[in-house]
């Protein structure tokens, strides 16, 4: 289940189209020499070399493509970063302030761009980010069939599932594939609660899928359950007590929840947060980066038993 070995959806066209629309011409020409199917991230840092995470390795962007050596690397200035940012915001930064204040922008194709800079805080709340210093383009992937191992454990019914791994290992990609699989196989109403608009844009859309984008989970869960009567809710990156309360409420309403979560290795997770979460999830899926991105390393059930190990 290496997600990069069988890319089938046109993320490449979408991902590089967006990048190519906003990046300065000297970076565009360099990126033309890079195989986009293996690109996970493109990082721009003010007055630093442009870095590309390529097939899991950190590389420098050069005029001829990518290189492990810094010597020929392409550099980017602060002014360039500001121009890229302005283009990403469709020349309307004010229209993206809410997202920017949460540290990212997502474009209509699901390309998520992390933003770093000087935060302006008022009454304990970020109201603006200025003097940008870094942008991180995370290239989304849609890989049909990458959730196969998880689906094997849902023979007769959908099970509430939590997918856990470090950042950039393939949690969202698996969640996205689960949406299609569950919708097609079980013909259940699936509600995608897509806070950052990362899941839905690359979804090979199925007939029973609805999506709420850019809404905080609390509102999306409450309104979604009330208005759309979903049988399954799929959401990305749960974090903190409020998100857990949303899942608790959904479980009480009989709705199955599939979620992803940033997490450490199995042992630490088991000791620290397995107990409170086992009430809401039936399967815990751990991805194993050491074998390859998007690889299911372990699956445990709500009793804590390992039911699959790589």
């Amino acid at each position, binding site marked *: 289940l290496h997600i990069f070995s069988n890319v089938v959806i046109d993320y490449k066209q979408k991902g590089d189209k967006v990048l190519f629309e906003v990046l300065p011409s000297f970076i565009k020409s360099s990126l033309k020499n890079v195989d986009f199917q293996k690109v996970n991230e493109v990082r721009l840092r003010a007055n630093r070399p442009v870095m590309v995470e390529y097939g899991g390795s950190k590389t420098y962007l050069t005029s001829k493509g990518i290189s492990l050596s810094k010597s020929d690397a392409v550099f980017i200035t602060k002014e360039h970063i500001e121009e890229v940012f*302005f283009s990403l*915001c*469709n*020349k*309307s*930064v*004010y229209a993206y*302030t809410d997202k920017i204040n949460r540290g990212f922008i997502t474009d209509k194709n699901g390309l998520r761009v992390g933003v770093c800079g000087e935060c302006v805080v008022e009454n304990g709340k970020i*109201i*603006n980010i200025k003097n940008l210093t870094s942008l991180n383009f995370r290239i989304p992937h849609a890989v049909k069939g990458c959730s196969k191992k998880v689906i094997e454990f849902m023979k007769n019914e959908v099970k509430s599932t939590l997918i856990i791994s470090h950042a950039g290992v393939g949690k969202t990609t698996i969640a996205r594939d689960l949406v299609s699989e569950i919708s097609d196989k079980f013909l259940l109403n699936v509600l995608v609660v897509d806070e950052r608009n990362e899941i839905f844009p690359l979804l090979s859309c199925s007939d029973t899928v609805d999506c709420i984008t850019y809404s905080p989970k609390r509102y999306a869960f409450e309104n979604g359950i009330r208005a759309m009567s979903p049988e399954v809710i799929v959401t990305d990156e749960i974090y903190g007590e409020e998100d857990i309360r949303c899942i608790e409420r959904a479980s009480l309403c009989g709705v199955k929840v599939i979620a992803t979560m940033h997490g450490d290795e199995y042992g630490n997770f088991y000791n620290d947060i397995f107990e409170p979460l086992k009430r809401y999830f039936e399967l815990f899926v751990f991805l194993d980066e050491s074998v390859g991105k998007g690889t299911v390393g372990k699956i445990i059930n709500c009793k804590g038993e390992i039911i699959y190990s790589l």
Partner: protein
Amino acid sequence: MSGKIFLGVLIVFFSTVFGRIKADKYRRKMDFLLAIEDFAVYLKREISFSSNTVDGIIGNFQTENLDALSLLKSWLLGTAVYPQFLSLQERQVFKMFFDKIGRSNRENEIDLISSFSTEIKSMKEIENEKCLKKSNVATKLGFFIGAIIFVVVL
């Protein structure tokens, strides 16, 4: 004789038209400033109450003024091109605005538009005075010059 009268009438006609064209130059600038003032009001309202982007707002803005339209379109394409009839100082005001628009949060955008509107208003007042004085003078002068030439020809 009739040939001379015909020529004289032609001269009066063309010199009046020339005077009128000169007068239109002032009216054109005035019309442009009025259209831009309307645009600023529209932009402020949209930014205050919707999350529409500047591109979208310009796309929805309706005006018959071709100078304003061409400025807004050129901004959309990446480089704002300002009408020739703007003075260097006026051009600077426009440049300050069009270089900054869309680059900040909602509050700052509204402040920027408000101060631009104030600048446009004062430009408009000055231009209105000029327009009243000079456009009438130019039309009349065109006619009178034509009439003098007509008398001389006769």
